[in-house]
């Protein structure tokens, strides 16, 4: 997918583990792993809001667009 998730980089900068983030934002570790590995199809604004609040960052720090072929729907 052309939209890349930089959650692992931001977590590293904040010296925060995925488990700690999961506890803070109320999203399961499994779902955060899906997000971190770029397998997520969509992100809710409420999730993005919670992530930015807890990581003290902007949505642009978490997501970047890289031009490339779009994924198929199936």
């Amino acid at each position, binding site marked *: 997918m052309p939209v890349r998730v930089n959650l692992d980089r931001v977590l590293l900068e904040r010296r925060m583990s995925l488990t700690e983030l999961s506890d803070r934002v109320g999203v399961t570790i499994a779902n955060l792993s*899906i997000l971190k590995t770029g397998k997520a*199809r*969509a992100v*809710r604004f409420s999730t993005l809001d919670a992530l930015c609040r807890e990581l003290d960052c902007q949505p642009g720090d978490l997501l970047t667009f890289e031009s490339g072929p779009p994924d198929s729907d*199936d």
Partner: protein
Amino acid sequence: MRALGPGSVSSFLKIILDVIYVGLWIFVSLLSIFTLIALLFSFNPDLLARLVPISDAVESVSRNGPLFASALGAWALMMGGWMLIVERLRRIFGTLTAGDPFHPDNVLRLRMIGLILGGLEIGRYIYTAMSHWLAPSSDSKVSFTLTAWFSVLVVFVLAEVFREGARLRREAELTI
């Protein structure tokens, strides 16, 4: 009225499907046994003559036996097709009661139901044409029923709806 659970429409439909499935099982089994018996007697009239000492009955069976057996066999096949449809409907219903009606397998199940319905209709044409050819005295005629083909179309449309539902389900699963 509740959608799921005891006293709901789905529980009522589940009972109906279960009853029909069991009924069809019994009916298909009996038809298969009768077909085998009819085949046995039609190809071995001496056996029938020993069991039923009425010469008219034996002559009638040896004359009409193969036709009767093939009619029974065709009926058993048709009922078998219905049983396959009900079996798939029960599986679809299983996913509904499990709270996951847009399971990807349901798309294939619905397509299979559509194919079986179409196959049964084509089989009916073939059976009617053959019975008219083998027994010209019978008043059977090949009749094109639009309702049957319309139901096939409805099932295929529903399968496509379920395919889209399965895609949305997949997307919802990967929405964080």
